[in-house]
């Protein structure tokens, strides 16, 4: 079954249904960075952060049962790009430790200028990326 996926304004919804969930995940990740490229935002940083947020939803939100929706909403603010990834899953408190390095949220926090997480009644991750020259100013290997 193909994923239910569509764009409404700047929102994307992908329905998480195995085994195509990860395909929907990649498609969803592609949208905000493309949008970001037109608004002087760190394209690669947005791509990585959105990938981590959607990965968390795919892996943790619906561990049992038929799955559910993962939504991505993108909006442009005067000084930032706001990307919200949300699901109706089990929320943060019940999340299991299913694989992974456990660094997804840490990565997101380092990539965006502000981060809000609401894990009650599903999970909502709101990431705000500063609009500027898009240059990466993070740590470097020495």
């Amino acid at each position, binding site marked *: 079954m193909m994923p239910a996926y569509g764009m409404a304004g700047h929102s994307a919804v992908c329905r998480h249904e195995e085994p195509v969930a990860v395909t929907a995940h990649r498609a969803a990740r592609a949208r905000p960075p493309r949008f970001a490229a037109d608004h002087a935002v760190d394209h690669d940083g947005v791509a990585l952060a959105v990938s981590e947020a959607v990965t968390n939803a795919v892996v943790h939100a619906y561990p049992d049962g038929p799955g559910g929706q993962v939504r991505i909403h993108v909006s442009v603010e005067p000084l930032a790009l706001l990307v919200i990834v949300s699901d109706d899953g089990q929320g943060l408190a019940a999340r299991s430790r299913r694989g992974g*390095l456990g660094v997804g949220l840490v*990565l997101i926090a380092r990539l965006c200028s502000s981060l809000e997480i609401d894990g009650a009644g599903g999970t909502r991750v709101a990431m705000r990326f500063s609009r500027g020259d898009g240059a990466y100013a993070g740590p470097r290997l020495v």
Partner: protein
Amino acid sequence: VSGTDEADALLRGPPDEGYRGFGITRTMVPGALRLKLTGELDLENAPIAEHHIRRAEEEALDLALDLRGLTFMDAAGLGVVIGADRRARGAGRRVVVCVGSGCVRRLIELTRAERSLEIVDDLDRDAPSRNGGSLW
């Protein structure tokens, strides 16, 4: 003994909107195996990469992971690399990782994974294999 198997062609998917095909190329040298990964290494492709890495481990080979051809890698992909490194250390084998510049290096930097991984800039120059001085 050197050669390239068919994995690269088999794993490349058709280009699609927002997609980039993922590929792996195996190149064997005495005592070692180089896996060159291209495209995007994320939650979707991580199991494919892990499959090929574990197959190399069954051959008890030192491993060189050439990630310079990746256009994207996230924590799911990094987990595959770190897992390979940990298993190799436990088995007395060696894993060297070539990240080049760009998104993969950035992920390595953000996660500080360079503290645990053996990262080289040039596989041929910096990572001679242990067997007969042959290069990767």
